């Protein structure tokens, strides 16, 4: 849903995007609205996490230059093979959660190949109701819909496969220093850089719909506070933010092919690649389960993609649970 306010805010960002200082009167004239309206839109975008500085009597200025996501640009950067497999590609300015909207917009089996991005999510979700905070125009929030007539043989490892796909894209863009925390959290220097939430829906052994949700912090870490983790962003790793449009296109190129090939994928080599990105192996960590919390040492992932930890001198295997690193010397 793109409202009149969304389009005005987009135009406002376009003007401010060069990092210049613009007076309220100047912006009001350019957009043909009142100065009060400008001030209200600026205030709203600030609550969405966009850092807009204001100097009394002088005007407004973006702290960081911002390039907005453009569906047309992203589409033009897709490989021909992927472009043919993407049924629709849409960028929303402001939405609740791209996973939710994708699932609401498309019924059973019809979400296949649809890609949805958003500049801002008011109800971004992580695992089990955890919030996913994504400041306006400072991250990539994307959901891909896929349908399998038969459930893939190792459905759980899809979670790891998507994470491997994201790491490959980072490699293509020269983004170094990131790694994975089981099963698919993206970390760099012990701080959270991104997350993946895969949702599946289907009957036992029947057709299955998959929604892959991805959130990556681009230059927004300063605006994010998480209860469990410190936060980082791509800009902190590379010194400057990448083109979000290019990064989004590369992610779609990689992940669409990953989803397409997943049922035939050789799980052993996928897990081997995943292990190469493991940034938790050997570390002291705490795993939180619904009924208990255990502390121990991360051993790695087993041949089924499950987490192995040494707890009280005993090797234990976990199918789920949330790991957090223990800050210890």
């Amino acid at each position: 849903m793109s409202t009149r306010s969304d389009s005005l805010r987009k135009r406002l960002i376009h003007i401010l995007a060069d990092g210049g200082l613009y007076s309220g009167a100047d912006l009001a004239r350019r957009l043909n609205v009142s100065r009060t309206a400008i001030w209200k839109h600026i205030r709203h975008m600030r609550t969405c996490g966009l850092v807009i500085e204001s100097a009394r009597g002088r005007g407004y200025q973006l702290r960081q230059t911002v390039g907005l996501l453009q569906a047309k640009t992203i589409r033009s950067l897709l490989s021909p093979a992927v472009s043919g497999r993407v049924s629709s590609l849409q960028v929303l300015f402001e939405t609740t959660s791209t996973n939710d909207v994708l699932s609401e917009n498309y019924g059973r089996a019809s979400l296949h190949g649809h890609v949805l991005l958003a500049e801002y999510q008011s109800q971004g979700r992580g695992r089990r109701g955890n919030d996913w905070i994504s400041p306006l125009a400072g991250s990539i929030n994307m959901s891909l819909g896929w349908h399998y007539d038969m459930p893939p043989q190792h459905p759980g490892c899809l979670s790891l496969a998507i994470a491997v796909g994201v790491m490959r894209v980072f490699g293509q863009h020269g983004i170094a220093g990131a790694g994975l925390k089981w099963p698919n959290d993206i970390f760099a220097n012990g701080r959270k850089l991104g997350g993946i939430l895969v949702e599946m829906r289907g009957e036992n052994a029947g057709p299955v719909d998959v929604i892959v949700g991805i959130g990556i912090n681009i230059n927004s870490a300063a605006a994010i506070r998480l209860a469990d983790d410190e936060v980082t962003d791509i800009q902190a790793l590379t010194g400057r933010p990448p083109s979000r449009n290019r990064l989004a296109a590369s992610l779609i190129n990689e992940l669409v092919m990953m989803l397409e090939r997943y049922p035939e994928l050789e799980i052993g080599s996928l897990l081997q690649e995943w292990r190469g990105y493991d940034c938790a192996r050997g570390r002291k960590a705490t795993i939180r389960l619904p009924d208990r919390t255990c502390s121990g040492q991360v051993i790695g992932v087993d041949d089924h993609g499950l987490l192995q930890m040494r707890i009280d001198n005993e090797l234990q295997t976990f199918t789920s649970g949330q790991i957090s690193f223990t800050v210890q010397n």
Partner: protein
Amino acid sequence: MDIRKVKKLIELLEESGVSEIEVCEGEESVRISRQVHTQSTQTHVQVPDVGAALASGGTNPVAVELQSEPQPEPGHIITSPMVGIFYASPAPGEPPFVSVGQVVNKGDVVCVLEAMKIMNQIESDVTGTISRVHVSNGEAVEYGQPLFTITEVE
């Protein structure tokens, strides 16, 4: 046929979850069938040749209706397609997807199973009434473990 034998057969039927059995002994035969209703189990006993067995009188054939405990309840069982954690609700603090006595349609989500951070929304493959929830929220489940029993709508 001995009334005790009939009684035994009824018990057998209740334990097994089978909906109908027929036993022939010489020229006598007994067919016991039961129809499952939403909440209670009704057992119809039809004895074609009563003879001395049912001395209580009555017409021939005699239909006896017995009310029995709803457990163990026959019905369709939804089993876990994977090893993971069972969640009864979409998110912590929210009401469960389904509870006992609730009618579900084929395709309705009945629970979420989490494994390796994949949130798997499990759909009911039948239409009927939830008669039992076998696991509790946050419990670890194994492959093939019963999650729900659903009494199917005929």
